[in-house]
């Protein structure tokens, strides 16, 4: 018998299955050669080492932002500021990669730390506003995304821009600052190890330390946390610092691992995708790995599909929207849970 306790897992799997079925259904309607297109979408991402590499490369930044957002959501803070922090930390790390000359091991560490600390400090602003004056963190964090993008673009245009590059991009990074490759034949870089280490660290922090306990209780019921003597103001500020650090670290790792110049002239979108990853992972640090890989997999599948068939990659936005809707719809499959609970209680056979 399936237990009610597994309900959330089953529900997530059901959501993914439904969204994939819907994708296939749309393909069947749109494509002239539906079977081949479906084949491309589902199997092409796994068809070669290079493609698998693409999935992992894309999953690295998603893990960082997903982890950052999951931590905030866990504290019941609906903060979507990872986007701007990710971008701005990329600028900071790039500046260090361009303007500093350091030895091979120290250079990326300094750049990533600088990016992470920038993220933490900037994230503290909505955090303090929320903790002290109950300013809605969703509003401030979204506004900060625009502010950070604007300021970042200014730095790119006036401080980092290489006039000799053909596009709007920074000077080339010092090779010493760039992250080493991890798997030959792909572009997977050591950022993957950093991402997984961060996830493990956050997992232990959340479930095995007293500070993580305070965070979880504050998120679950702030009145209860306060009644227990937890300083929730402090907790909220600390969560923002950690989440900001993770998002900033993600941005730094991404630019140093995947590029040799800073060249984002628009927000890359990883921050908001992080919210989707956190939703799929049910705000569980370890599940962020799977959720990020899944999202990267369907993205790469869509890219390949656009390249090799007659269905555009934008299809994937529909799928993502369906996932978000179904996962956030609390009533979805609830009747089933109720039935399982009744069965377990022995009321219904």
């Amino acid at each position, binding site marked *: 018998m399936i237990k009610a*306790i597994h309900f959330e897992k089953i529900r997530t799997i059901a959501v993914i299955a439904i969204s994939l079925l819907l994708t296939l259904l749309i393909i069947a309607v749109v494509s002239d050669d539906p079977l081949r297109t479906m084949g491309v979408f589902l199997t092409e991402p796994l068809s070669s080492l290079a493609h698998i590499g693409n999935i992992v490369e894309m999953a690295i930044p998603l893990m960082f932002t997903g982890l950052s957002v999951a931590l905030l959501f866990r504290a019941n803070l609906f903060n979507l500021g990872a986007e701007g922090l990710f971008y701005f930390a990329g600028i900071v790390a790039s500046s260090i990669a361009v303007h500093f000359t350091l030895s091979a091991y120290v250079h990326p560490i300094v750049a990533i730390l600088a990016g992470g600390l920038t993220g933490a400090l900037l994230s503290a602003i909505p955090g303090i506003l929320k903790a002290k004056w109950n300013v809605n963190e969703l509003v401030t964090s979204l506004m900060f995304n625009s502010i950070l993008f604007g300021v970042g673009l200014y730095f790119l245009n006036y401080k980092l821009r290489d006039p000799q590059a053909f596009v709007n991009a920074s000077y080339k990074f010092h090779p010493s600052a760039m992250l080493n490759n991890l798997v030959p034949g792909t572009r997977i870089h050591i950022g993957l190890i950093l991402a997984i280490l961060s996830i493990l660290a956050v997992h*232990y922090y959340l479930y*095995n*330390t*007293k500070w993580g*306990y*305070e965070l*979880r*209780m504050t998120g*679950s*019921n702030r*009145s*209860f*946390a*306060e*009644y*227990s*003597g*937890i*300083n929730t103001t402090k907790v909220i500020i600390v969560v923002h610092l950690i989440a900001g650090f993770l998002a900033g670290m993600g941005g730094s790792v991404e630019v140093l691992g995947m590029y040799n110049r800073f060249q984002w002239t628009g927000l890359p979108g990883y921050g908001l995708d992080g919210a989707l990853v956190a939703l799929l992972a049910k705000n569980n640090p370890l599940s962020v790995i799977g959720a990020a890989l899944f999202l990267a997999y369907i993205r790469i599948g869509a890219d390949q599909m656009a390249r090799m068939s007659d269905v555009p990659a934008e299809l994937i936005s529909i799928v993502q929207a369906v996932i978000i809707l179904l996962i956030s719809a609390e009533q979805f499959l609830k009747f089933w849970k109720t039935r399982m*609970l009744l069965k377990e209680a022995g009321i219904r056979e």
Partner: protein
Amino acid sequence: MGSSPLLEMRNITKVYPNGVVANSNVNFSLVEGEIHAIVGENGAGKSTLMKMIFGMEEPSEGEMLLAGSKMRFRSPQDAIDNGIGMVHQHFMLVPSFTVVQNIVLGMEPTKGGSINYKEAVRMTEELSAKYNLAIDPHAKVENLSVGMKQKVEILKVLIRGAKVLILDEPTAVLTPQETEELFRELKGLKREGHTIVFISHKLKEVKEICDRITIMRSGKTEGVFTTSDMSERDISRLMVGRDVVLKYDKTERRAGPAVLRARDLSYMGPEGKPLLSHVSFSVREGEIVGIAGVEGNGQAELVQALTGSLPGVKGTVEVAGENMIGRSIKEVRDTGVSYIPEDRMRQGAAKDASISDNLIAMFYRMKEWNRGLFLNKKKITRFTEEQIARYNVRCKGPEQPIGMLSGGNMQKIVVARECEAAPKLLIAEQPTRGVDIGAARLIHERLLEMRDDGCAILLLSADLNEILEVSDSLLVMYNGQFVAYYPDVKEVTEEELGFAMLGIKRQDAAEVRRALHD
């Protein structure tokens, strides 16, 4: 008043899905044009009965007759359509809307597809003139005083054509002047032929304006009386009383030095109403001091003052000789204060967190519960299993979310957490509200055990059984003050307690001040 009743409830029984019998075989009738009081203690079933009349709940058994014909209300809309309106104790108004907008909400007069505000204002003014309920139709509700908001509520009900008005403790939030005004208005409504149901604890008010009284006690009606035949004392006698359900063999009290000592606690509410005035008492080692009183007479504020969560309170609170006023909740708790809150869903538990997470809220920051950076998970699991066994909690294990437990089992976890911290002072606020008899017995026995071990316990309860059986001495709160102190609970009669709780009789200040044990 010999005419046939306008509304009749016959043999009404209401059983809630969780098994609580709120009404059993209740009979109630309303004669057109009367003001009819329903009095009873908290939990006597008054609200349930009113909810059924107003269509918010459906009776499990029994029938309801309106002007002689059988009726079944499935929603408040049915009740409104049949001319029954309710003014709730907590106002249901949109603060950012004007008076007119609130009054016509959902039934706005329209002209050519848009709302006709002129007409709405005219309707409001006409109604307020007719019933002499003076109000500025353009004022924003958020800027109104409580008394004015109540007028808006009454107008809201009247404009929907209500002939029967149910007022749920309408004077609880009013100042004496506002109360007087309300009574004038109610008398006016009566003259116009309206019928009013008046729910209250305040017997003086009931005597003042009501024609008849229905008295309720633990889900049953004690009878219907003509007000002029009854004295306040008669009413109180019928209202307050108990059926002894739980009895305990208590050991002799061995009171030590005072652990909690509160002096001259005073607090002014946001509306300028004094909610606590010069409250002084002490709780000594090894005794249980009960505080009885009808809810809303300052008990909640008193507990907040004692637990460090009432900024702006005047006076002193000492626990084990240390001043607690101005301390954070954490500091108060670290002094050795435990607190079982009244509302376990809001404060007492994090419902999607596990049982063990809920149990360790008092301990997680202590050194013994951590190993270096990490929490000692083994110790936590062992502790949780022990408590589940000790308190006989029905659950699937330490990791089950507490929200999936029944109310009684959830409360056992809350009690376990607060008691196992070995506090010097335990404040228990309605510790057995809404739990089954078995859980209540277990909780009471645990409290008595802690008292024998020398813990000082302050018990606040609206449940007379509990307060008379469990406490050693008793204080009675009325209107933010202590009005009676009984050093030995055995010497209190229920009758006397009823008089004190309802403010009919009060001891002089010196007698009450003995509770301080200086």
